[in-house]
């Protein structure tokens, strides 16, 4: 039997949907018993959410004041102490998991599979390399623990309806004091979260200015979509970096992705190729985005977007 420990991501109130996707991934490991562990100052609320995920056998809470903020140097030694009972340790391939999991793997002397996109067997997985231009199948030694970051765009969220046992753990682990949280500056949260939204509207350099970019916000709000941006738009200062979609930004898998004024650089396409339906609007009919789009429309976005919005209103 395999015992998979999933490191849950949360903000103290809400369990990040990436965790439910890790559960689905873990279910692919043959004969897996799944545990979700939550570190925080008070994880009662998020533990209840994790316990409701179908397929989770148990939820571990590790509450202590030092766990208020997810610092890898603080979390890793605690998770290493817990890992002795497990064969696999999974975390999401988000900035949280990508920061934390290699620190755990190194302390365990274990290999890490980054951006795990498919489980082929207990110790055989698929993952992308070269910005998704190649997919490798890798095998690890079952004698060692296996650490992975799960590529959230590759898995559906596990359903709710589960009723896992919740247990509080006290770990006798000395924590370092060399790393301290100072603060965070996060964007507006009125719109759906880009990483997990079902609908995403994204803009590129063709928007021309930060002012023009606002056109997309009105449109996105109309259809309840998150807003993204290409790296070119971010580099030009039209949109903040947390909106960046692509290999160097967020890799997403919405039901519908509407790319507006985005030419489709390879690094951008890497971030959207798991979208169910890609809609491209661009004035250049030769733009590479049309190679991957399910539906394409050639034309001036400044005419098309208002008309699109108007037609949806009727």
């Amino acid at each position, binding site marked *: 039997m395999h015992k998979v420990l999933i490191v849950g991501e949360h903000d103290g109130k809400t369990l990040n949907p990436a965790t439910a996707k890790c559960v689905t991934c873990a279910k692919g490991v043959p004969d897996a018993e799944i545990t979700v562990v939550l570190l925080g100052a008070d994880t009662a609320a998020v533990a209840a959410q994790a316990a409701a995920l179908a397929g989770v056998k148990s939820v571990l809470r590790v509450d202590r004041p030092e766990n208020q903020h997810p610092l890898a140097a603080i979390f890793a030694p605690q998770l290493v102490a817990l890992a002795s009972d497990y064969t696999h340790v999974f975390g999401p391939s988000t900035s949280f998991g990508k920061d934390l999991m290699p*620190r755990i793997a190194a302390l365990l002397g274990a290999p*890490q599979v980054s951006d795990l996109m498919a489980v082929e067997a207990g110790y*055989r997985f698929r993952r992308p390399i070269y910005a998704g231009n190649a*997919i490798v199948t*890798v095998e690890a030694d079952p004698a060692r623990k296996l650490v992975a970051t799960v590529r959230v765009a590759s898995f559906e969220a596990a359903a709710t309806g589960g009723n896992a046992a919740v247990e509080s753990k006290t770990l006798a682990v000395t924590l370092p004091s*060399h790393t301290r949280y*100072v603060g965070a*500056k996060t964007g507006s949260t009125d719109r759906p979260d880009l990483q997990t939204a079902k609908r995403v509207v994204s803009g590129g350099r063709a928007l021309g200015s930060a002012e023009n970019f606002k056109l997309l916000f009105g449109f996105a709000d109309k259809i309840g979509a998150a807003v993204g941006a290409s790296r070119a738009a971010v580099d030009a200062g039209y949109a903040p970096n*947390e909106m960046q979609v692509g290999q160097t930004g967020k890799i997403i898998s919405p039901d519908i992705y509407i790319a507006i004024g985005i030419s489709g650089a390879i690094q951008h396409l890497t971030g959207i190729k798991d979208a169910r339906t890609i809609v491209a609007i661009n004035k250049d009919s030769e733009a590479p985005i049309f190679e991957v789009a399910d539906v394409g*429309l050639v034309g001036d976005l400044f005419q098309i977007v208002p008309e699109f919005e108007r037609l949806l209103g009727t």
Partner: protein
Amino acid sequence: MQKIMVCIKRVVDYNVRVRVKPDGSGVMLDGVKMSVNPFDEIALEEALRIKERGGNIEVVAVSIGVADTQQQLRTALAMGADRAILVQTQVPVEPLTAAQTFLALAKKEQPDLIFLGKQAIDDDANQTGQMLAAIWERPQATYASKVEITGGKAAVTREIDAGLETIEIDLPAVVTVDLRLNEPRYVKLPDIMKAKKKPLEVTSLEALGISAGVLLTTVKTEPPAQRQKGVMVKDVAELVDVLKKKGLI
């Protein structure tokens, strides 16, 4: 602050469109242009800017790789690194082995700060910096977009999914850098000439007491699944119609 170590990887140039070998044994690398991993270039640039702000700071560029990796280290020296060390090996090393090798160098060099790119654009592993910090038992600040050093501490602003986060770390520490930290300088011809005279030491994994472990074996390499080409619509009305039929809006 006396010394900054910057870890550099030789990778396929980011402009090269990488193709998978027909027999699935890997990607085609013969005759392909190789460069310094772009994130590592940003890491080096940041080290050089800290040096240029004053103080007697030495910047040491280090790498692990084949003999030709000397080319990338010469580029680092031309950018402004003071000296370089190549740990020469024919065998590609995994992130944990790379971290162990850099740790061995750190124990010899005693840097106050180690900079690396957040990931290499070949294996996209995004592991080495964190692993190095773990086994060095020192702080890590990943995905840095701003680094401020005061005394024995650094305040690092990090790019996280939700926006920006700032943490304070005690030195020595490992910092991995993100795209927006800076824009690396262009190398000028006189600097390339000067770089030829700068010291470049070549050592080996064996000399550092490292045995390259294989924890993950690649059994197959395939091209990614291709999306099928879609339809072009003539106007917004038709677009809305198609999307409604698909039940998407």
